[in-house]
């Protein structure tokens, strides 16, 4: 393929959204460079460590949103669910004296319950999800206030494991590097096995240099991140947990039957049903996973702030999580996207927020800019859909 042909095919793939999260990752780098030019502290290891730590909790919520968007639905109550989960953890452990692990489990159970109710409403009554999750937003916010009681705010002791895990736990350098080595080795082994099997089956294979290049790029990318964050406090435990969840979800979406069913239902639920996909169960799994991840995000947030109050999960948490999923490139129209869009999307949103704060701009500027970026992302999503159908 000559340069012109390559450029044309890349443009075509960009236009139809087949490049996945890559374009957004490029935008993320550009955002980083712009803010660095405006404030030399932006790309410092210290700031990036803070940024990743702050992104984790809402990122986990965004990962759940990615799943509901995949089946062509939306959950507008994820912020409220995270707030209720935070309240359950704090009130259960501090005021009622439950063991902390039990309070965390109870919070996650709340997520499972909420998701099950949404799924039942959707699959049995065919109510549009944006309506009943909006109703859920109100109900759950009310429940959160009731759980917190008249004081409205509960603090967690700083020495509790949840708080330490979310605030001060960082992977030891040896652990970080061992994980990098394992991930790279696992990825390389998977690629090579796949290639060998394809050659044996006489299927077309990518040239060997591409496989090598991908492995090297992954190793280099992970090494740079770990080494650079390592010059400060290192990779936060809570951020590592978030990235691990994203990677696991990505594997499940792309390489398991469940993931295929999720994408099929998001693309065309009726066709999927005719093909024998258990459509109802797929919807249930997506709604339950979304609410449970939202609850987990709330648990991580309560650990990070060492407190739960009426503001937990309120305000812009909801919209930030949903915006991150869409900005990361997961389509609002269902059936298209990637688990990685939760990571890239939340990093974009968090970078804008941190960058504007460093420039001494207040929350008003942050909301306006994030809103504009979301508008651009949705426009691109709509244009890509049109290009695919043309």
């Amino acid at each position, binding site marked *: 393929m000559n340069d012109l042909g390559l450029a044309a095919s890349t443009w075509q793939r960009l236009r139809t959204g087949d490049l996945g999260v890559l374009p957004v990752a490029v935008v993320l780098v550009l955002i980083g460079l712009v803010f660095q030019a405006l404030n030399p502290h932006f790309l410092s290891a210290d700031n990036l460590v803070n940024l990743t730590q702050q992104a984790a909790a809402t990122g986990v919520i965004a990962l759940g949103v990615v799943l509901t968007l995949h089946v062509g639905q939306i959950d507008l109550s994820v912020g409220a669910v995270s707030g209720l989960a935070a309240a359950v953890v704090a009130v259960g452990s501090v005021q009622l004296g439950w063991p902390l692990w039990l309070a965390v489990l109870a919070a996650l159970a709340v997520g499972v319950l909420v998701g099950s109710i949404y799924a039942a409403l959707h699959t049995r009554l065919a109510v549009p999800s944006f309506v009943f999750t909006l109703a859920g937003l109100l109900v759950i916010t009310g429940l959160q206030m009731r759980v917190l009681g008249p004081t409205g705010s509960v603090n967690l002791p700083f020495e509790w494991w949840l708080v330490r895990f979310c605030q001060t736990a960082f992977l030891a350098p040896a652990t970080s590097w061992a994980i990098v080595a394992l991930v790279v080795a696992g990825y390389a082994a998977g690629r090579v096995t796949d290639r060998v099997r394809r050659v044996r*089956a006489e*299927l077309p294979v990518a040239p060997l240099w591409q496989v090598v290049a991908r492995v090297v790029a992954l190793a280099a990318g992970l090494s740079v991140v770990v080494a650079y964050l390592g010059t400060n406090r290192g990779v936060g435990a809570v951020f590592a947990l978030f990235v691990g969840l994203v990677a696991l979800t990505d594997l499940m979406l792309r390489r398991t*039957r469940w993931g295929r069913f999720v*994408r*099929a239902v998001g693309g*065309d639920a009726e066709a999927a049903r005719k*093909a024998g996909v258990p459509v109802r169960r797929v919807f249930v799994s997506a709604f339950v996973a979304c609410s449970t991840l939202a609850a987990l995000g709330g648990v991580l947030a309560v650990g990070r702030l060492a407190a739960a109050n009426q503001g937990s999960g309120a305000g812009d948490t909801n919209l930030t999580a949903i915006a991150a999923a869409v900005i990361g490139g997961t389509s609002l129209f269902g059936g298209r996207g990637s688990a990685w869009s939760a990571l890239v999307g939340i990093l974009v949103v968090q970078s804008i927020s941190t960058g504007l704060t460093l420039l001494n701009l207040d929350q008003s500027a942050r909301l306006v800019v994030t809103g504009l970026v979301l508008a651009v992302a949705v426009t691109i999503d709509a244009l890509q859909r049109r290009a695919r159908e043309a």
Partner: protein
Amino acid sequence: MTGSTVPVLALLGVSKSYGAARALVDVDLQVHAHEVVAVIGDNGAGKSTLVGALTGALVPDEGEVLVDGSPVTLSDPSVARGLGIAAVFQDLALCANLDVVENLYLGHEAQRGPLLDEVTMEKHAWELLNQLAARVPSVRVPVAALSGGQRQAVAIARSLLGEPRVIVLDEPTAALGLRQTAEFLTLVERLRERGHGVLLTSHSLADVQAVADRIVVLRLGRTNGEFDAARTSYEELLAAVTGIQR
């Protein structure tokens, strides 16, 4: 070919009414292995009802459905599939965002441990499409990027996964252009060569004459003649379809 052998699939005196409207009246029909049977008729002649009765989408009021000469009750499309009757409907029921392999195996994925076995599925997909002489640029492009004819080939290939003996195609050429129709007709010939019985409905007489062994004309729910495709003129068929006497 239509001589003494037992038909794979047959209808015997089948009638079906919707309230006062009689969609099918005392219809007989036979499909043998290695045979392409076309059912033609104007809109409202009963083609869709006939397809429904053959594929288990509906149960006739009277008459019998026979598989290998034995009466069966096709209470559900899955029962029909279990008896070796596959159906490809006009909407094709493909997920446009999934690629060819993903669509072919949707609901029947091959697995290696907990993960999908893409290599096995992709290899089998190519074999199947090559047998049908279907021209698809890649089995890893989303179905949305394929032409109408290519999508149809994918839908038919999918119906072959269960190794059915009879394939029922409902209005397969309705949405196809001229070239795509020609490719489709080649594909139907491949199905016959593979030993399947094929029943297709159409209201395009020319398409049907090019590929069918036998042509059954439906008019107002009744069989209005059964013709040997090779020895029947377009005018005769047209007269049977429209009911105009010459």
